[in-house]
């Protein structure tokens, strides 16, 4: 078994009687992957909930694959099964299943499983297969040391750091760049090391002549076409623009000839570096007991904009036209028209829940006649669950996604940014507006 990205697979028939096999498999795998006892227990708990739920309400008696994946800083359990001839409505995070005890109604479904893990996600794969994934992260010691910044700022060069320099960078970033925009992982050097070693993230550091770390940047593929970076983090007030540009340019150099079409920064950008980026709108970020933080995503295209066609809805046209005009993006906007046609069946939304950030990102996976009630039910469940940051994204490359616009607007979602080429086409993200909901 390759330590990096190793994966173990269990194939079985989805029957509740096999639960002990499943939990034993997940527990053993998570142990081997290095998850702590508590984390292991929570992952097993989530597995239990999901497996029984899937057997009872989604794919009972059908073939199922359970995969345990070692992401180094997390262990992931993935339930895979064929979507054919199934009512996937039950995979909505806010799905309610009839139950004898009415009081349990809102505790059913996948929501309970999501509470014991960091992330839960549903993905429809190629070949009509569905994948439901839960992620449990390892616990790492918080940085406790303090570091003195390097004094020499001459002969700066950029390199991919070795393990010790990467930890040093993380420690210094946590110490010198600790602002509300910084990602929480900066405080855990061991975690950053595993994030990079696992292959999902990459890093670059700026070093001086004495090989002392004076700054750095971390980046990863947010989508197939969009790279998101954290930083550049710089530990000196002097020459920030110069060093920041060196780091950014090196990062761009690494991704310029890859699949990436855009570079996104959501965790703040020093003012001296903002001129190379465009702002994509803004959204409020809420945390328990804190003032909301206004986040401005910064973005830059990496290539010529080839232009494309996007779908819109009459209620979204003005916003899209104004954003595309502001961003000088060449888009042919096609507005959908309802000609009285009906939708059948039930819709399915992907809900990626990230508990640490009190955040959920919703995304439509299947259309249905119940858009309005499904959006309303998701909002109710997620609010009741205490999630403070509720986002809903639509791919403007799918005309049916735009059918959701009236339901989103009626449920107090407001457009906050258009991210070019983040989906089949551009991705528009809406944020649930708690204030507007209160004032109604």
């Amino acid at each position, binding site marked *: 078994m390759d330590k990096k990205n190793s994966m173990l697979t269990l194939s079985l028939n989805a029957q509740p009687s096999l639960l002990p096999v499943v939990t034993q498999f997940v527990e053993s795998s998570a142990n081997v992957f290095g998850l702590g006892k508590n984390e292991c227990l929570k992952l097993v708990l989530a597995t239990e909930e999901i497996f029984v739920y899937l057997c009872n309400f989604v794919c009972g008696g059908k073939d199922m694959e359970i995969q345990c994946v070692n992401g180094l800083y997390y262990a992931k359990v993935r339930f895979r099964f064929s979507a054919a001839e199934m009512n996937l409505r039950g995979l909505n995070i806010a799905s309610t299943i009839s139950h004898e005890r009415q009081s349990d109604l809102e505790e059913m479904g996948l929501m309970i499983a999501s509470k014991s893990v960091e992330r839960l996600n549903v993905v429809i794969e190629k070949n009509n297969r569905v994948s439901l994934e839960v992620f449990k992260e390892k616990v790492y010691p918080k940085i406790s040391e303090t570091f003195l910044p390097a004094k020499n700022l001459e002969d700066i060069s950029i390199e991919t750091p070795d393990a010790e320099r990467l930890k040093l960078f993380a420690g210094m970033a946590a110490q010198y760049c600790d602002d509300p925009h910084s990602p929480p992982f900066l405080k855990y050097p061991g975690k950053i090391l595993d994030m990079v070693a696992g292959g999902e993230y990459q890093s670059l550091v700026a070093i001086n002549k004495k090989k002392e770390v004076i700054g750095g940047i971390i980046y990863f593929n947010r989508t197939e076409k969009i790279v998101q970076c954290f930083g550049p983090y710089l530990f000196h007030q002097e020459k920030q623009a110069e060093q920041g540009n060196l780091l950014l*340019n090196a990062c761009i150099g690494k991704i*310029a000839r890859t699949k990436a079409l855009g570079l996104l920064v959501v965790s703040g950008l020093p003012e001296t570096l903002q001129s190379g980026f465009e702002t994509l709108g803004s959204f409020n970020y809420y945390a328990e007991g804190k003032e909301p933080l206004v986040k401005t995503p910064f973005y830059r295209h990496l290539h010529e904009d080839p*232009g494309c066609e996007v779908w819109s809805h009459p209620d979204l046209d003005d916003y899209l036209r104004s954003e595309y005009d502001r961003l000088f993006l060449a888009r042919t906007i096609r507005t959908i028209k309802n000609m009285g046609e009906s939708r059948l069946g039930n819709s399915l939304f992907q809900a990626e829940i990230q508990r640490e950030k009190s955040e959920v990102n919703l995304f439509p996976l299947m259309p249905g006649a119940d858009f309005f009630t499904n959006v309303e039910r998701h909002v109710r469940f997620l609010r009741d669950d205490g999630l403070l940051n509720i986002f809903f994204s639509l791919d403007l490359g799918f005309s049916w996604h735009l059918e959701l616009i009236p339901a989103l607007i009626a449920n107090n979602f407001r457009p906050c940014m258009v991210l070019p080429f983040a989906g089949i086409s551009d991705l528009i993200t809406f944020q649930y507006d708690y204030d507007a909901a209160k004032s109604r």
Partner: protein
Amino acid sequence: MIMMQPNLDNLVPAYVREFEPYIPSKPDPELQKLYGCSRLLRLNNNENPLGPPPAAQETIKRFPSVKGAVYPSGDSYYLRQEIASFHGIEPDQILVGNGANEVITFVIKAFCEQGDNIITADKTFAVYEWVAVFSGIEAKVIPLRNNGFDDRAMLESINERTKIIFVCNPNNPTGTYWSKETLIHFLEEVGGRQIVVIDEAYYEFVEADDFPDGISLLKEYPNLVVFRTFSKMYGLAALRIGYLAASLNLVDMIRRTCVVYSVNAIAQEAALAALRDDTGHIEKTRKLVREGKDFLGEELSKLKLPVIKNEGNYIIAKLPGSDTLAYRKLMREGIMIRPMTGFRYPNHIRITISHLEVMEAFAGALKKVLQG
């Protein structure tokens, strides 16, 4: 019957799956519609604004349409003879391809297998790197030094699996070049252990005295391959024709990976006529480039933009902000330049030198974009 979808994860090698296909720009009328501009001045591909030499234009005009039904010479027989006589080498030392891009592919296919690597620069013509990567060959990209190929660092990067070293001379996009002395020194250091490719796509634009003619070095260095193209100075980009020259032994090997009949008959005849043209096309083009560069250099300097201005029919300007945003804004003004992020020069744009009135239009539009 429902056909099963092929499992592309199993059928396609990972290095192909992971490769992002290059998406060329849309045709002008489509771009004009998208960006809402009434005309489009293309300053993005380093084309010759004078077009092909008059003799080649005449050949294209007179090409008998009935010959459209007949296969061309499969190995560009007459053209190779003309090129050989032009350079004083044997016709069998020449391979003609469907643009220089095709001969890059021939060379990589001929010498590299999986596990091998090629060496080139990080900020140069992308196709060497692309072809290597989607063929499963590692591309070692060495950072430029002072905007030029770093000969020392390239030599130090050679290992036992290095097969080819690509040098773009003069470099696209910086216009820097290796002098004859540097090139010879490099070839001596390599000592025939690797293939050295000198891409001279912009050879005819260079006016510097110490610029080497790679083809004249073929006798002394049998590991040397030289690329030339008809797309730039000779204005035949639309016909896609370029060639390589090398020692007989090398060409004999490269020929094995070469697709015959890939060069069409009009391209072969037009290229032949271009070489025979005696109307001073090269001099006229050089004059236009000189004047355009002087004018543009001054305009960019008035805008306080740092420039990289060396050999070739292009200039790079560094902008105070995003090059890709400037591209989109300039497109709205009907001007198409090359943003350089893809060349690993973020916030830089490359501008092809053209007629003075076009340069004026560009300078005006850029001023407007920077002020807006």
